[in-house]
């Protein structure tokens, strides 16, 4: 059944069908509508489990509550954005270190300062190496569907999963979504059987202190399990398609990129814009395609290299920009393509909610295809302003010194 719903509600309804035992979150824009939706469904008894909804005093507490409940053996969910993710960072690492299969939505939003509530992906990028699987949604449909897959991935592998959903662009946008049924979800997602849990009949100490004599092995084991997640993530996506009759998730998705000379690589909702652009180029018979990365962590570098080995140039479009790193996705791509002849361009756009216009991105792609693009470029950045202010502020600081 097709429904016209807000992205957040599509996500909330998908989670509800997964019969979570515990939902615990702290409000932060743009994640709020998801947890408001869940709070309402719990109150109205619409979730077919004895679901506990816990209001807490911080994101740190929200994930900590999930750590407690997951370690007690129940299906646990939280959601956050931006500063909230950073505020819970210590617990984020703790949850993956203890291999607790918590599912968390990231309503992707910029991180401050300066404070900014709008969309980019610097929040989930900032915690990309925390040992959580990260999967990205392109549409509201996929945002909902990925959560159903996320519980299965998390619980099958005993690794927590972040589902990254672009704030506002998806969370607050209304789109047609095909709703899943309880029967479909029940067929797809078995009840949660924890790897280990607190149990009075079998007392266990969970979270012991590990010293130098064993820490390296524990860490290596943890990373080994993490690195093995790619295959199951792909399989679960295919299993999903069989039961629900639609594609969602998986490691990547081609759009005219199987044989194209020029390939645009991106994460999340910007792929919609990119695909529109590809359609326009294709009318002119330009050899260009879009390649969407669905699973960002673990990073399927080998698979991407295999899929795009024909490409002459790869243009990585992403919504994050870090001091000392630049674009995270571009960096990962450069590592995956080291030794390859393909030229990798890093394009940064959409920071702090700035719209990515087709026209602006096309100008950049045109220049790339003429081999005139710099290795690092920005979509609609007012460079003159940045350079003028840089000079002025340098002068001020030297006067002050």
């Amino acid at each position: 059944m097709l429904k016209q719903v807000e992205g957040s509600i599509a996500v909330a309804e998908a989670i509800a069908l997964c019969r979570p035992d515990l939902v615990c979150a702290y409000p932060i824009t743009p994640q709020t509508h998801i947890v408001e939706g869940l709070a309402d469904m719990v109150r109205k008894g619409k979730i077919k489990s004895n679901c506990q909804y816990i209001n807490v005093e911080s994101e740190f507490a929200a994930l900590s509550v999930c750590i407690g409940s997951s370690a007690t053996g129940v299906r646990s969910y939280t959601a956050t954005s931006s500063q909230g993710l950073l505020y819970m960072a210590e617990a984020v690492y703790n949850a993956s270190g203890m291999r607790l299969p918590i599912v968390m939505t990231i309503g992707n939003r910029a991180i401050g300062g300066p404070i900014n509530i709008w969309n980019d992906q610097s929040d989930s990028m900032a915690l990309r190496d925390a040992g959580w699987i990260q999967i990205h949604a392109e549409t509201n449909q996929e945002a909902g569907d990925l959560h159903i897959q996320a519980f299965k991935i998390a619980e099958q592998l005993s690794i927590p999963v972040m589902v990254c959903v672009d704030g506002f662009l998806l969370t607050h946008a209304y789109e047609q979504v095909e709703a899943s049924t309880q029967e479909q979800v029940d067929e797809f997602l078995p009840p949660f059987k924890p790897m280990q849990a607190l149990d009075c009949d079998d007392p266990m100490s969970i979270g012991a202190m590990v010293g130098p004599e064993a820490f390296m092995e524990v860490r290596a084991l943890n990373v080994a399990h993490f690195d093995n997640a790619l295959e199951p993530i792909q399989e679960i996506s295919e299993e999903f398609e069989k039961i629900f009759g639609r594609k969602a998730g998986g490691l990547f998705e081609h759009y005219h990129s199987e044989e194209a000379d020029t390939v645009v690589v991106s994460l999340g909702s910007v792929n919609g814009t990119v695909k529109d652009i590809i359609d326009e180029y294709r009318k002119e018979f330009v050899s260009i395609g879009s390649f969407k990365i669905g699973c960002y962590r673990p990073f399927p570098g080998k698979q991407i290299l295999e899929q795009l080995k024909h490409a002459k140039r790869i243009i990585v479009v992403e919504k994050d920009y870090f001091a000392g790193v630049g674009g995270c996705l571009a960096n990962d791509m450069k590592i995956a393509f080291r030794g390859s002849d393909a030229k990798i361009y890093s394009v940064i756009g959409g920071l702090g909610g700035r719209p990515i216009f087709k026209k602006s991105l096309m100008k950049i792609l045109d220049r790339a295809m003429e081999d005139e693009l710099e290795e690092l470029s920005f979509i609609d950045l007012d460079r003159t302003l940045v350079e003028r202010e840089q000079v002025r502020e340098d002068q001020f600081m030297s006067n002050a010194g």
Partner: protein
Amino acid sequence: MSTELKPDFCQTGNLTAGNRLQSIDVVSVQSTEDRANALTSGHRACQGCGEALGARMAIDKVMELSKNKVHVVNATGCLEVFTTPFPETSWNVPWLHSLFGNAPAVATGVQAALKAKGMEDVTVIAQGGDGSTVDIGFGCLSGMFERNDDVLYICYDNEAYMNTGVQRSGATPPTARTATTPLSGPHPGNNFGQGKNVPKIAMAHGIAYVATATIANVRDLEAKVAKAMSMKGARYLHIHVPCPLGWGSLPKDTIKLARLAVESGLYPLFEGEHGEITGVTKIRKKVPVDEYLKLQRRFVHLFKKGADTEDLAGVQAIADAHIKYYGLLDDGEK
């Protein structure tokens, strides 16, 4: 609670564990054969550790009353480190450690999970030292209180960050030497602030039960655990636990110090329900704070030649204020 006990026929140390002259119904769990031994021997606490004693006393009582149906959440700190060096553990209970500042929230999650599973007969304990309780985990603690989650939180207060090498915490008493309040400058040791009295702050939350206890009075401690466990909702127990390493005291003096803290008035024993004080343990024989302080090297500067007498007087004033506020002396006594 202790007023119900009959110490008349007892020998010296009449309220300590193992007193064979007490009737079986008031005898301490610690002196019974079938105690659960929640925290087994072989752990790595220092000699004379008050926290190890306090934790064993409290959790053994919880085990007895809950018939071993208990989940324990532990904050990072000495108690966590000395009991669970992987692959060993001293705990005979289902035990979970996550972080330094989140034990109350983790316990909320454990309790909510038990509720979701329809297993509300399992008692949930959260425990930590004063650093995690009064400082870094205080936000989570207040949240757990405010929601009235069905968790008994136990704080083992040794008045500083002992696990990291004796740094000042929000529970460190004025003038005490710690590694970050050294014995130098015009006012050596910790400053005189308002202090952070978490038992009183817990009372201000209006939670079901708040009590302070000491390892020098086992049956009072156990009675308070029992009282807490007879109630539902958020409950808080604050146990004073001397630390020979951090306080510069002799291991053999741990129990003595715990007793002198009470007898001097510096550590008042009281209990309260829903924000009202319902009972205090009177001081049997009041001692000046000097007797308590002199046994600890962290206060050595107070008794040196030329020491600022105001500092010592300030500590005595705190004890006197406690005695007055809680009514710790019988009428007519001073």
